[in-house]
């Protein structure tokens, strides 16, 4: 049954790509924030707000673009609050991130219930349609892997070189990096550290929001409490694994997506391994990956350290 095995492997790769998308959005966003020196533990909560707002916007207007924009706005608003706490008020960055996580988690669930109440049939939106490219999408193997996805998949993978270029080749990217590595020097050079950090953390938040909306608009069509299932945390792990570099984060997101697709595939085909152990894999693999890399270089020197002008 060689053909069947091939089909299964192909299916795992295709769904693996899709599973890696939310984490890619969140990871690339968090990378930008951390490059500026802001550690945001609140990603999971921001993604949940994105999942809710994206669903809500699409449900009301029937327009995915509106949904995505609302997801970005809701998540960016939480990120701005995190920015206010970490940049202006200079509270402990870990505590601020945890507060954002729990606030996003609670608020998304609360607003959803306030808007829709308890219904026997959960309100849903149609799943985002796929974009097929005439000719290319019908190609064997290559077609389904590369040319038969929803638009967010293409955008996510376009963002990989774009964010890389943004961080390393643009003057704004240089400012973000300087602010994260040596804020004192950046200040001396006349860079507005507060502005740059706000920009980076809000940009990161907007991207996390898209990642969250991917769950409700592409994967399920519903909003569910805790639909992100820890992906925001895995994204944090992957930023460390990826040494704050877009291509490595993408590699990590791929591994995560494939593991997730693989364990779902195993569940579907039936195996003696209890499904709970398969479901553990997406959580255990990131830990194992982090444990596997002993020396962790590349963290921005001023990560999680608030900046105050004129302070030694």
């Amino acid at each position: 049954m060689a053909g069947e095995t091939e089909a299964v492997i192909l299916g795992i790769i295709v769904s693996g790509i899709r599973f890696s998308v939310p984490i890619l959005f969140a990871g690339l966003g968090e990378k930008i924030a951390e490059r500026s020196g802001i550690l945001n533990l609140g990603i999971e909560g921001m993604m949940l707000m994105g999942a809710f707002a994206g669903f809500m916007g699409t449900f009301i207007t029937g327009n995915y673009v509106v949904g995505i924009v609302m997801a970005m706005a809701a998540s960016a608003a939480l990120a701005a609050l995190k920015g206010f706490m970490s940049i202006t008020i200079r509270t402990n960055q870990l505590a601020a991130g945890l507060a954002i996580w729990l606030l996003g988690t609670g608020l998304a669930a609360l607003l959803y219930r306030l808007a829709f109440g308890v219904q026997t049939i959960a309100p849903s939106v149609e799943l985002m349609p796929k974009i097929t490219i005439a000719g290319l999408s019908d190609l064997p193997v290559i077609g389904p892997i590369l040319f038969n996805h929803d638009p967010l998949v293409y955008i996510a993978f376009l963002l990989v070189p774009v964010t890389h270029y943004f961080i390393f080749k643009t003057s704004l990217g240089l400012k973000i990096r300087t602010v994260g590595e040596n804020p004192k020097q950046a200040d001396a050079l006349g860079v507005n550290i507060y502005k740059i950090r706000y920009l980076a953390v809000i940009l990161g938040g907007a991207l996390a929001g898209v990642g969250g909306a991917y769950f409700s608009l592409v994967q399920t069509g519903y909003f569910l409490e805790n639909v992100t299932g820890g992906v925001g945390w895995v994204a944090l792990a992957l930023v460390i694994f990826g040494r704050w570099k877009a291509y490595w984060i993408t590699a990590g997101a791929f591994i995560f997506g494939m593991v997730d697709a693989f364990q779902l595939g195993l569940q579907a085909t039936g195996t003696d391994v209890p499904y709970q152990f398969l479901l553990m894999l997406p959580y255990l693999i990131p830990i194992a990956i982090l444990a596997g890399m002993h020396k962790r270089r590349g963290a921005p020197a001023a990560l999680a350290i608030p900046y105050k002008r004129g302070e030694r």
Partner: protein
Amino acid sequence: MTVPDAISDTRGNSRARISEALTRFRDVKFFVPFASGSLAFVVGAILLGSAGIDVGDAYATMFRGAFGSVFGFGDVMLKTISLLLAGLAVSVAFRCRQWNIGAEGQLYMGALGGTLVGISLLGAVPGIAILAAIVVSFIFGALFALVPAVLKVKFGVNEVISTVLLNFVALLFISFLLHGPIKAPGFNPYSPEISEESQMPIIFPGTRLHGGIFIAVLATVGVYYLWKTKIGFEIRTVGANIDAARYAGMNITKSVFVTLGISGGLAGIAGGLLVIGVQHLLIEGISPGYGFVAVIIALLGRQHPIGVAIVAFFFAALMTGSETMNRSLGVPAAFAMTLQALILVFVLVGGLFAVWLSRRNRGGAR
């Protein structure tokens, strides 16, 4: 300076007057929590009101649910047990700068430990069964918390990420056990009921409040005195300044292990008590997220046992009242969590904002 002098002195300079008022409130620790709590309730009212819910009715129902009956107040105290123990667990870790966000998973492992004692032969020995269940739940929680400790010390894995992700692993592991190895006969994924000997007795008739409240009080006192012991001083020093601790010849590895062990163990007891005191069997949703709320409690309580106890009691009332609102008015269950997180945000912002404001004013008056 006589009194009229002081008045005329400050009347002339509004800036000085404001700064004087702020100096009086310089210890904002006292003022900010109340303002933050009130503000959170205002935001909550706006959210509920915009959804067409009668806010006055909702908050009255909430208050009645928590304080309007003996049974309700018993439930507040019952939840205080879980929140206090879990809050202390997170506090011990945070105080030593070990960011243990895995209290929920450790709580579930402790619940498993308590269940295993309760359904085994050990659970049939009167007098010993309860103590054994508590000790084993501590050990289960502690051992599960040692996993991130090993990962941190030996492999350099950030404990925030490992503890959070291990929550999911613990819940899945419990789910596996309840669907297979320790499943009781019948349809539901429940464990068998624990023996009567291992059930914590109710201490107040007409309520669900059980003897675990004494364990929680004991743990509070224990944590208070822990900081005064040699090992307590060591683990705190490691948390405050790891370089200084290393220079003083303190064993960093041991400190991380002891901190996370005690932390996980306390969360484990919280879980064990949910089984032997409340549910009398293990189910998948035995904790409505106590381990996550505990993070807020530890931060609001400033990792001090007394602070944690006060916040735990207040949050227990909030959660009990919210459940009543949920049952009788259909206010979403997520209301309590949202309000708790809002209070934390306001306290984090408000506390430092007030400090910032007073500093600025003092600077300007100079």
